[in-house]
C-alpha cells in the first residue's frame, strides 16, 4: 500500500532547544497512526510540523506524493482538531463549519450540502444555529471534528482531542472517532498521552520519548513485546512489574535477591548471556496464583477491587508486584499466596541498554 504521509529526516528546534532530530515516519494510506508519549516528547511538535504550523529546521514532509515542506497549512489537504476545540467564538456552528470552504470560495450550494452531510454524520443538526459558547464540551469537539470533515481533507490530524473531556464523554467520542475512521477510511494522525486511546484507536502506534520514536508497531505488539524498558513501563495500566535480576546460564535461572526464577521458556532465551544483568518484566495479568515447583511464596499487602477485576499487591524481595485477578476473587490483607509467572509472556531487558532481549 502506498504511503499517505512521509516524514523524511526532519529536525526542529526552538532557538537552541532541539525538539526533533532526524526523525522519519511513514504513514500508510488509510492508516490510523497514533503518536503516543509523555508530555514534552515532541509528539505535538511533530504534528504541528506535518500541519505546516511550524517551519522545519531540516528535512521534508510529503503528503500524497507531494512535497509540502514549504507549503502553507491550507494547501496540505489536511484537517485538524485541537484539544481546546478552537472554534471561532463569534460564529455559529454553521459558520464555523463553513469557514474553510468560504475562504476557498466554494459555491453556496456545495457548502450547504457538505455541512448537511457532516452534521448528519456527527449528529449535530440541531446545533447548527448555536454559538460555541452555548455548547457542551462534547458537542464542541464534535463541531471541531465536523470542521475538519467538510474540508474533504486527505489527512486528519488530531491533537489530544479528548483530553479536555470527562471520562464518560471521552469513551463516547473515542468510539465515534473509531467509527468515523471505519466509515471514511481517511489517513488519521492522532496525538495523545492516553494509552487507552492509543491502544483502542490505532492501527499502529509510535511511542515517542525525547523527540525519538521508541517503537513503531501495532498496539498488540507494543503491549506484548515492548522494545525497551521505557515502552514497557509507559504502556499498560497498572504498569508492568519489574524485577532487577542476574542471569545464570547453567540452570537458565534469573536470580532476584534470594529467589530464583526459571526462565527457560522465554522466547529469546538463547540471546541472554551468562551473568548478564537484566530487568525481568511481567504484566499483572500474566501472574498466576498457584503453587508449583517454580512459584514464589509471598504475602498480600494491598487489595484494590476495580469491579471487572481485582488488583492484588504483594512484593518479591522488596520489589512491589501487582497481580490482576478476576473481579470475583477474594483475598484479604496478609493472606499467604504462591505466585508463578507466565514466562513466555514476559519481557526481559538488558539493564544497561534497556533494550528488549
Amino acid at each position, binding site marked *: 500500500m502506498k504511503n499517505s504521509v512521509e516524514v523524511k529526516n526532519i529536525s526542529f528546534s526552538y532557538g537552541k532547544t532541539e525538539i526533533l532530530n532526524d526523525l522519519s515516519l511513514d504513514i500508510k494510506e488509510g492508516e490510523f497512526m497514533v503518536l503516543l508519549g509523555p508530555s514534552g516528547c515532541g509528539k505535538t511538535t511533530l504534528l504541528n510540523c506535518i500541519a505546516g504550523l511550524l517551519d522545519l529546521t531540516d528535512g521534508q514532509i510529503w503528503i500524497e506524493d507531494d512535497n509540502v515542506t514549504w507549503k502553507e497549512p*491550507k494547501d496540505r489537504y489536511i484537517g485538524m482538531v485541537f*484539544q481546546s476545540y*478552537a472554534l*471561532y467564538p*463569534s*460564529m455559529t456552528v454553521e459558520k464555523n463549519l463553513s469557514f474553510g470552504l468560504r475562504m476557498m470560495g466554494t459555491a453556496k450550494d456545495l457548502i450547504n450540502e457538505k455541512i448537511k452531510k457532516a452534521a448528519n454524520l456527527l449528529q449535530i443538526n440541531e446545533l447548527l444555529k448555536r454559538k460555541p459558547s452555548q455548547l457542551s464540551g462534547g458537542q464542541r469537539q464534535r463541531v471541531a471534528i465536523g470542521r475538519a470533515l467538510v*474540508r474533504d481533507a486527505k489527512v486528519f490530524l488530531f491533537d489530544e482531542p479528548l483530553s479536555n473531556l470527562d471520562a464518560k464523554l471521552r469513551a463516547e467520542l473515542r468510539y465515534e472517532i473509531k467509527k468515523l475512521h471505519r466509515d471514511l477510511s481517511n489517513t488519521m494522525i492522532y496525538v495523545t498521552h492516553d494509552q487507552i486511546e492509543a491502544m483502542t484507536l490505532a492501527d499502529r502506534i509510535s511511542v515517542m520519548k525525547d523527540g525519538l520514536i521508541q517503537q513503531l508497531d501495532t498496539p498488540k505488539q507494543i503491549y506484548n513485546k515492548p522494545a525497551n524498558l521505557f515502552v514497557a513501563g509507559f504502556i499498560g495500566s497498572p504498569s508492568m512489574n519489574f524485577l532487577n535480576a542476574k542471569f545464570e546460564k547453567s540452570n537458565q535461572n534469573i536470580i532476584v535477591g534470594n529467589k530464583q526464577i526459571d526462565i527457560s521458556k522465554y522466547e529469546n532465551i538463547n540471546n541472554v548471556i551468562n551473568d548478564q544483568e537484566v530487568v525481568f518484566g511481567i504484566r499483572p495479568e500474566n501472574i498466576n496464583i498457584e503453587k508449583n515447583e517454580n512459584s514464589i511464596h509471598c504475602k498480600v499487602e494491598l487489595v484494590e477491587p476495580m469491579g471487572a477485576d481485582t488488583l492484588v499487591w504483594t512484593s518479591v524481595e522488596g520489589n512491589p508486584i501487582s497481580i490482576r485477578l478476576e473481579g470475583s476473587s477474594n483475598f484479604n490483607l496478609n493472606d499467604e499466596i504462591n505466585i508463578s509467572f507466565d514466562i513466555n509472556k514476559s519481557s526481559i531487558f538488558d539493564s544497561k541498554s534497556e533494550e528488549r532481549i
Partner: protein
Amino acid sequence: MSTIPKGPRPKHLTIGRIGLYCFIIMCALFFLMPLYVMIITSLKDMDEIRAANILNLPKELSFYAWPKAWSQACTGFVCEGLKPGFVNSVKITVPSVIVSVALSALNGYALAFWRFRGAYFFFGLCMFGAFIPYQVMVYPLLKIEDFLGIYSSLPGIILVHTIFGMPILTLIFRNFYASLPIDLFKAARIDGGNFIKIFFYVIIPMSTPITIVAVILQVTGIWNDFLLGLVFAGRDNQPMTVQLNNIVQVDYGVAEYNVDMSATILTSLVPLFVYFISGRWFVRGIAAGAIKG
C-alpha cells in the same frame, strides 16, 4: 448566650465596615466638591459671585453664562464662544481615533500571532515609546511636519495624535491577542485564512471589549489634549481645550467666572459622556487581560 451556627452566616456591621464607608464617602465628597462649585458658580450672576460665599447655592438661578460660553464668549479677537472649538475637536478626534485604533489592532495582531524575526525587539521598542514624555518629541516632530508641508493643518494634528497613540495601543492590543488561544489562529490558518482574512474574519469579531477600551483611551486622551493641539493644529483648527484656555485667560476686561465655569464643564462633557456610556465595557476590557503587563 451563644447561638448554634446554622445556615447563612449572620451579617454584622463592624467598626471596620463603618470606617470604610466613612472613608469612601469622604473621598467622594472630596472629588465632588470642585464639580459642585463649578456648577453653582456657572448658575450665578456676576454680582452674586463677587459677593464671595463660593459654597452657597445661587439665590437666583441665572442661565445666561451657558449660551454665552457656547457661542459668544471671546477667544482673543473672535467672539464666537466654544462652538468652533467643539467642531474642531470633533474633526481632530474622530479620524485620529479611527486611524490609530485600526492600525494598532493590526500591529498588535501581527506582533501576537505572526512572530517575525525581531518581534520581541519591536515589542520592547513599543514599550519604550509608550513611556517617553511626548514633550521631548514636539520640536523634532514639528520640523518633520514642516518639511512634509502639513504643519499647522488638520492632517498634521491628526498624524501627531495617531503617532503618539500607537505605541500604547499596540501594546494593549498585542497583550489582548496574546491572551487568546493560539489554537484558534492555527485552526484559521488550516482553514485557509491568510494574514488579512484571519484578521478580519476571526480576530476582529473577538476584539470588541479591547477595542472599546482603546477607543475610550484615545477619545479622552485626544479630546483633553492641549499642548499638541496648540502646537500642531494651527490657528484655524484649534481644539476646544485651546479655545477654553483663551476664554479663561483674558488679558483685558472682567473675568467672568460663571462663563469660565460653564465653558469648562462644556469642554469636559464629551469624555464624561464616553465614560458613562462605556464604563461597563471598560472594566470588562481591562479584566480581559488588556492593560495588565
